Each structure stands twice: as structure tokens, then as C-alpha cells.
């Protein structure tokens, strides 16, 4: 415990005093300011003279103002935060000859990796919480609407999801920093995996869907084929943590959304009820809808950390 705290304190201090963190924080703060401002202006204009809809405040986070919304921004660039915080966690210590020194202190070996992961997690948490608070304050002034309890709870759930999502990438980059001796290699590996999982998985699943169940727009395709096509596409894209995250958060942040699947999947009754009953879902039900996504996100994060843990514990310490 003593060792864990010592490593944790030192790593946290390192994160907060490092240039890369300051740069990253500045970038995130700037982008969030701009997106919120755009979203706020857009919302104010479009809501003028209209009866105030429920949950206006949450719209601040999922209205694409200029290019993308705040939630989209996190799903795109959140991984980068995780990668930046972890890509050289272990191999820098190894390269500088400090790892042997650490493990020859009277601490358990896992204190090193646990301390580093927890310090990264804390940094991510502090960054996201402060950004969300700043945006909220900014939004309050811009919209003049105070968020209700439900909205605050939804934001909190969304925040936790974002932290888990970014922690997954922290875990990935720490894993690579353990397996690759070279720092440049571990950065590239993390970035390659990020690009692959975030952008290529959807493409690949689309290709697979078109091969397995070709849909021709000119001819009338059998209904079953269309459904099969969409099903393969959607299931395949779920392999991407980014898709998991954006599905989960879009449901949590927008109470009017009731399903993550596309219209083609809905039966006639479901479609009818969706168009008839426009009432927003309560938070519990929203969580229920994306429960699989949330569980999957947490699971891949834990698995990723577990693998890094095992690899690190089994690795020989050589000088």
C-alpha cells in the first residue's frame, strides 16, 4: 500500500507538471469552448419563440454546433488523451534505468503498474470533470437555463462512461509500453490500434455486410437481405470501442432516443409506439437500453488492464 501511494503521488505530480498534459488540456479546453459556444448560439436561435423543450441543457453536449458535438469530440479524440498519458509509462523507466531501482525498493511489483494506472485515471477524471463543469457554467450563462436533477444525473453517467472509455485507451497504451522496449514503437502501435478500431472496423463490417448480403439499390432487394445486411454492419461495428461509447452516450444524453438500432429493425408496433409516444425516457430506462454497451466498455477496459498487469508481472527484470 505504501509503495502504491508513493508511485501514485509521484506519477500524478509528473502528469500535472508535464508539458504534454498542459498542451493536451489547453487543446481540449479550447475545443470544448468553441463547440459549446457554437452549440449554445445554435440552440438559442432555434429555440426562440418555441416552447422550451425539456432537457435543453443536455442539448449543449450533443448538438453539433460547427462540426461536431462535445460527445462526438470525446469519442474521436478521447483515446488520444489516454494514449498520451500512458504510452511511455513503463518503457521510459526501463530505458532510463529507473525501473530496476523501483522494483528493488521494498514494494510489491504491482504497485508500480497500479500506481501508474490509477494516476492516469485520476488525471483523466480531473480533466473531464473540470471541462464539463466549465462547459456547464458557460452554458448556463449562454442559455439561461438551469439543469434539473435528471439532467445532472445523466451528465454524471455520461462522464463516468467517458472516463471508462478513455481509461481503456490508457490501458492499451500502458500495455504497449510494457511490451515494446522502444517508446516510438509503443506510440505508433497505440495510434495504429486507435485508428483501426475507431475508423476501420466500421468500414470492414460494411464490406463484410455487402459481401454476405448484397443490397442493390436499383433492384428491389428482398426485405430479409436488407435486414441481414444492416444487422451484420451494426454487429460488426460494435467491435469498435468508439461505436460502443457513442451509442451509449447518445442514449444517455438524449432522453428522447429509445434505441440504438436503426429503423429497419423495428417491428410495426415498435415503430408505431415510437412515433406515438414522444415522452422522454426516465434515466433508469435509458441506462437499461445501453446496459450491454456500458458493460462491454467496462469489461474491455478491465481486460486490457488485466493483460498489462499479467505481462508486467511475468516479465523478467533485466538490466
Amino acid at each position, binding site marked *: 500500500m505504501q509503495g502504491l501511494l508513493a508511485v501514485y503521488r509521484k506519477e500524478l505530480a509528473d502528469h500535472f507538471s508535464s508539458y504534454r498534459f498542459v498542451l493536451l488540456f489547453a487543446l481540449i479546453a479550447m475545443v470544448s469552448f468553441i463547440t459549446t459556444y457554437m452549440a449554445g448560439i445554435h440552440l438559442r436561435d432555434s429555440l426562440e419563440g418555441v416552447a422550451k423543450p425539456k432537457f435543453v441543457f443536455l442539448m449543449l453536449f450533443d448538438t453539433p454546433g460547427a462540426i461536431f458535438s462535445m460527445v462526438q469530440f470525446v469519442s474521436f479524440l478521447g483515446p488520444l488523451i489516454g494514449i498520451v498519458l500512458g504510452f511511455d509509462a513503463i518503457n521510459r523507466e526501463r530505458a*532510463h534505468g529507473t525501473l*530496476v531501482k523501483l*522494483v528493488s525498493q*521494498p514494494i510489491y511489483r504491482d504497485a508500480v503498474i497500479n500506481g501508474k494506472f490509477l494516476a492516469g485515471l485520476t488525471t483523466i477524471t480531473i480533466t473531464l470533470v473540470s471541462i464539463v463543469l466549465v462547459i456547464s457554467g458557460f452554458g448556463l450563462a449562454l442559455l439561461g437555463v438551469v439543469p434539473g436533477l435528471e439532467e445532472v444525473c445523466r451528465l454524471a453517467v455520461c462522464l463516468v462512461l467517458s472516463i471508462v472509455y478513455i481509461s481503456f485507451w490508457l490501458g492499451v497504451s500502458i500495455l504497449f509500453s510494457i511490451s515494446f522496449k522502444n517508446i516510438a514503437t509503443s506510440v505508433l502501435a497505440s495510434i495504429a490500434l486507435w485508428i483501426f478500431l475507431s475508423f476501420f472496423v466500421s468500414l470492414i463490417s460494411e464490406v463484410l455486410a455487402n459481401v454476405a448480403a448484397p443490397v442493390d439499390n436499383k433492384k428491389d432487394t428482398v426485405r430479409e437481405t436488407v435486414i441481414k445486411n444492416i444487422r451484420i454492419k451494426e454487429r460488426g461495428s460494435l467491435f469498435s470501442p468508439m461505436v460502443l461509447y457513442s451509442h451509449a452516450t447518445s442514449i444517455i444524453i438524449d432522453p428522447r432516443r429509445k434505441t440504438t438500432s436503426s429503423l429497419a429493425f423495428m417491428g410495426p408496433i415498435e415503430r408505431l409506439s415510437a412515433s406515438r409516444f414522444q415522452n422522454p425516457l426516465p434515466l433508469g430506462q435509458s441506462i437499461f437500453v445501453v446496459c450491454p454497451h456500458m458493460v462491454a466498455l467496462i469489461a474491455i477496459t478491465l481486460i486490457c488492464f488485466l493483460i498489462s498487469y499479467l505481462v508486467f508481472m511475468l516479465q523478467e527484470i533485466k538490466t
Partner: protein
Amino acid sequence: MENESIIQAIGLTKRYGSQTVLADLNLHVEEGEVFGFLGPNGSGKTTTILMLLGLSQPSEGSARVCGMDPVRKAIEIKRVVGYLPENVGFYGDMDAVQSLTYIADMNGIDKDTASNKIRDVLDEVGLSDDSQKKVGAYSRGMKQRLGIAEVLIKDPKVLILDEPTLGLDPDGALRLIELIRSLNRDRKITVLLSSHNLYQVQKISQRVGILIKGKMVAQGPIEALSREKFGVGEEKYTLEEIYMKYFQEG
């Protein structure tokens, strides 16, 4: 067990796959002595040291350090044994006090005791004047002395030094050797010193062990080794000559 040596290895063997890097090593270091641990590069000295600290698991055989088994009691051993690795690294953006505070923190020394201790050890290794400088700006000799300070923080019973004088200028090496000698004499710390600098080893060690290709070929006081190799009445040979003789034969 009566009169147990402070460091004791029995039949210590390490294999990586089919390659044996250390074969059936028997080693004992008595309390209060400086033991010179010699051998060419890659002969298995560092491997032995890592196994003594529980950082690497022996394939066969066992060891006892301060009466404890490194496989089971690694943490307890590391509490009383200070290890200065070969080419030890530092966090370049910390100063000496910060580095030592971090090490003290990991050894569970509370803040007030730590700051007193840090002052004392910095004084002892002669770095008091440079304690506010970033370690990145230290010379190699200063870094080695800071490394010694880092292991002294925990008041060790045993010091294991792996090539502490490697790459130091003659003056720096001499100062370091004098420092080790005074630690042994004044603080009664047992020292296991691995080094290539045979002249220095001869100056401060009571006994030496020679490890060649993973086998301990000789162990004992320098005169005894000389007698063994060159005959009775031939105790005048230097450690270097003895070592070379063993090396050529091995």
C-alpha cells in the same frame, strides 16, 4: 543454523530456455565484510544479484539473505538490502532531494524523519552543495554518489553494488571506493561489490569470488587464492594476476 552467513547461496542455477547462465553457484558472504564479486561481462553476476533480491526466480537451488529466502520474503529482504544497479538511472527533472524523498516514501519513512535522513546521507556522500540541482545536470560521479545515497536512506544492513565505478574518472572512482570503505568501517554495512576494477577491489575487499561462464571458480581471501594458484609462499600476486590466470584456464 548457527553462524549463518549474511548472504548464502546453495546450488543456485538459472536457465533461460536451454541456456544455462548460472550453474550450481555456492556463495557465502560473512557479516561485516566487503566481498569482491568478480567475473567477465555476461558471466552471471547480475543474474546472481537479481536472484538474491528476489527480482528473478532461480531455476534450481536456494539462497538466504539475512536469514530470509528471497523467493518468499523479497519485500523483507529489500527493506534491509540496498541495491545499486549497474547503470542506475534517475529522473532527470528532479533534484537530489526530490529523488531521495521519492525513495524514502517507497521505503515507508515518514516525512520528518526522511528530511533529516536526506540531509545526513547527502552530507555523507558529499552532495550537500548540489542538492538543489537537477539530477539531469549531474556528472556521472555525482550520479553514482546519489545512487549510494538512495540506498543508504533505508539504513541497510547489506549493500549490493553492481559495477559502481564503471565509467568514472580515476578521481571519482577513488572517492567512491573510499566512501564504500567508510560505510563498511563506520556503519558496519556488509558490502557485496561487483566490479571489473581489480585494483580497487583488492584495496577494500577481505574476500573475493570469481565467476566465469556461470561457474564460481574460486572463492576466498586473496592470499588464499594466490596460494592456491601459484603455490605455497606465493601470496604476493595481485588480484589482477590471479584473475587472469583463472580466466585463461576457464
